């Protein structure tokens, strides 16, 4: 029996790695991928805790999360495509219109 804490630890590690990936990378696309990693880490955590409490609700929740993530990826990619068409670049350092 693997203790749930191990899974939680892994989830935490993955989440932090995703965060670091987000900061290190310069491409909008790859940063988006980092966000997906974080989502997955969250999924892992949900499942681990669901298992710890013995209910099946965790799995249902994970299903929804994955679905929503899929939808989000679709729209996000569409937006990135648009940005690329406009700016010819998806490097986040170039996209600073909000500079204030």
């Amino acid at each position, binding site marked *: 029996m693997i203790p749930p804490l191990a899974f939680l630890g892994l989830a935490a590690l993955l989440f932090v790695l995703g965060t670091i990936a*987000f*900061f290190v990378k310069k491409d909008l696309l790859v*940063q988006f991928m980092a966000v997906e990693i974080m989502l997955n880490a969250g999924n892992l955590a949900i499942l681990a805790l669901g298992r710890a409490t013995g209910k099946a609700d965790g799995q249902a929740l994970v299903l929804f999360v994955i679905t929503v993530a899929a939808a989000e990826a679709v729209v996000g990619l569409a937006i990135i495509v648009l940005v690329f068409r406009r700016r010819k670049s998806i490097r*986040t*350092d170039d996209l*600073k*219109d*909000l*500079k*204030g």
Partner: protein
Amino acid sequence: MADLFWLIPLVPGAGAFVLLLFGRRMSRRWIGLQASLAVLISFVLSTAGLVRLVQARSGTGLTRTLLSWIVSGSFSTSITFRFDELAAVMALVVTGVGFLIHVYSAGYMADDKAYDRYFGFLNLFTFFMLVLVLAGDIVLMFVGWEGVGLCSYLLIGFWFDRPAAAKAGMKAFVVNRIGDAAFIIAILLLLTAVGSSSLSAINAAPAAALLSPALVTLIAILLFVGATGKSAQIPLYVWLPDAMEGPTPVSALIHAATMVTSGVYMVCRLSGLYAASAAASSVVAWIGAVTAVFAATMAFVQNDIKRVLAYSTISQIGYMFLGCGVGAYAAGLFHLVTHAFFKSLLFLAAGSVIHALGGEQDMRRMGGLRKSLPATFPVFLVGALAISGVPFLSGFFSKDAILRSAFAGGRYVLYALGLAGAVMTAFYMFRLIYRTFYGEPKAGPAPERHLHESPRTMTVPLVVLAVFSAFAGFAGLPVLFGDRANIFGRFAGRVLRPVTHHLAPSTEVVLVLAATLSALLGIGLAFVFYRRSPAIPERLVRRFPRAYRLLAGKYYVDEAYEAAIIRPLVRGSEQVYRHFDLKVVDGALNGSAAAAGLAGRGLNVLQSGLLRDYALAFLLGAILFVGFLLI
């Protein structure tokens, strides 16, 4: 109708409100009509009130409280109007003479472009003056007191694009303020000592031993200081000659008949206090007498026709205070009434002269106008005779009453001063008459001078005032003719302390003769100096140049005030301005603005537009949040 007496101040007040707000859109004719009508209505109401009082024969008059005004802790004031004999006299003078002057102004100011503003202010002044005289409460009286000061400023500086007029208006206001400060202190002392602001309570206070004698004297003197400001006595008279920059009807109404007499009214109203303090009354009497002589000397050498009348006013008000100071409040009041008639007559007639000469006010450029102004000259003469105290005209009776009381009270020095002043009054007055109306015409043929008589709106009031100046004296005949002859004295005496001095008939006759002789002496001297041998004044000036310069320079009082008080104050405030206002106040303001800007720019650094930085902020927030949850 007498029950509507509380409308007396309010009708002109409403008129002022309408004129000041909507005057621009009203026709000249209507403006003049409305303004005069408002005052006329008040006059009618005052008359009705008078009739009621006469019929009542005794009592405390009509009172009405309009509303409760200030209620704060144990102190409360309400807006209360009281119409007793004293108030009746004042109200009639204010509304009666005021009405005539409104009518006169309609003609005099006909070419002025700010016609509406003029009548608005005039009505406003009437409102405040009536509030002052009808107030049953010292706080309300002070409201009127301040209000007339304000209107005086507005009207003196009516032609505000003339620097001299603007300065004169300010001078009047500031000097008045000094007096008002003393007045306020007196009010505060009264409120704490007496506990009530009602005038009847205040008058009864000394008798009820609510005030120590020293306190009564102090309060009375402080109030009188306020009166010296308003009524132009020593030491605060300096604004009145300069106030002649305003339109002549304003000089007639405010600076002859009404506002300047409010100090006298105040002393009469609070006669309870003054009668209780011999010291304060002496101060009043002495300052009055000295001012009377002092101002008369300055009138000897003035060349501006209005300035002569201004100094004359200062001098005559001194007489009124002299009367009040020796206890003869009714006599002082009587002189107030007669003075209102003949002084406003003189001012309005002078206005007629000035108007005819196209604005010329210097007597050195006048002369021989007797033939050119056949309607103005006789009324002017009547006024001059009245003020000089020629027998049977009004001034004679009122001045005589004052001098008699002084003599009867044993105040011989005061009497002598008064008598000397009477000679001087006749002298300078007839100096004016001779130089203006007699002799060779010195006015050149300038185009704007239309040497004709004024329109009827101007001459009719003059005639009415002349009639009163001539005959009003008979209301206050000396006791010589029997006790019942002094109608005025008995009427006013219901409220004011009655005079109790009695003189032997022979003494009375002697006094009357002395008064008559002084008047004739003055007129005779003027005749000699200015009609028969005009060389004499010039020779005197050459013989005593320094005396002449002293008089012509008004004893250098203005210069003394300027050097001793005004300049240090101005310099002091300039210092304060530079070191406090500019550095501290402005510095704080600018500093806070700069700080805001700095903060903004500082925060701007966070707005890099980069996704990464915003994500960093997110991360930080998430860490803090989770940390918070952990703890």
